[in-house]
């Protein structure tokens, strides 16, 4: 039931782009993206509801393909502050009162 994230880790130079993928074996109602800095709580980035929408703010955006039960997070022109672990959380259709998280993707942005 836990969504699968890929890659597990990625190292970037400042200014480079990255894509993090999240896929589920279940039909999804929504996908959430969170970022966690070391030793801190996860922080909400964005939520995408079924309907195949795409969202974004600043240089971080995401897409949700309901048919493929997949979501992707796009980070463009990465900054040092983007470093952290990114988690996708999924609400399964018919069970929208709990959020199940993936195993996370560690992103390290170097100067």
């Amino acid at each position: 039931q836990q969504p699968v994230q890929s890659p597990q880790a990625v190292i970037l130079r400042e200014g480079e782009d990255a894509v993090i993928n999240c896929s589920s074996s279940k039909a999804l109602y929504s996908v959430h993206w969170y970022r966690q800095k070391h030793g801190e709580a996860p922080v909400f980035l964005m939520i995408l509801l079924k309907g195949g929408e795409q969202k974004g703010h600043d240089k971080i955006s995401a897409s949700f393909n309901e048919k493929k039960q997949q979501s992707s997070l796009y980070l463009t022109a990465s900054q040092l502050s983007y470093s952290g672990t990114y988690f996708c959380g999924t609400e399964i259709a018919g069970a929208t009162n709990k959020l199940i998280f993936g195993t996370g993707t560690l992103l390290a942005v170097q100067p």
Partner: protein
Amino acid sequence: NAGVTQTPKFRVLKTGQSMTLLCAQDMNHEYMYWYRQDPGMGLRLIHYSVGEGTTAKGEVPDGYNVSRLKKQNFLLGLESAAPSQTSVYFCASSYSPGQEEYSGNTIYFGEGSWLTVV
């Protein structure tokens, strides 16, 4: 506005001891959750509650009990702690679709409780 507050932040237990983690939220959220986080495992849902007086099992409920006697509080209990329960525990809360403030199930996390069982 404190958001989601967890106590204690750090605790060391001996195997077999019991303890309770307290979570309090001041945002009038209907939904509350307890997650544990372990290296390489991400955040795994232990138990959750969709309202005062209700609880339900998540992905990894064994060895834990919960209670939601008041809407703002969600307690996580370990009756007989085991080394496998060494982890970081996060409480979280969110609005329910029935609440006026609901705009998608955005979850707000507490700062975490570091528990070591020796």
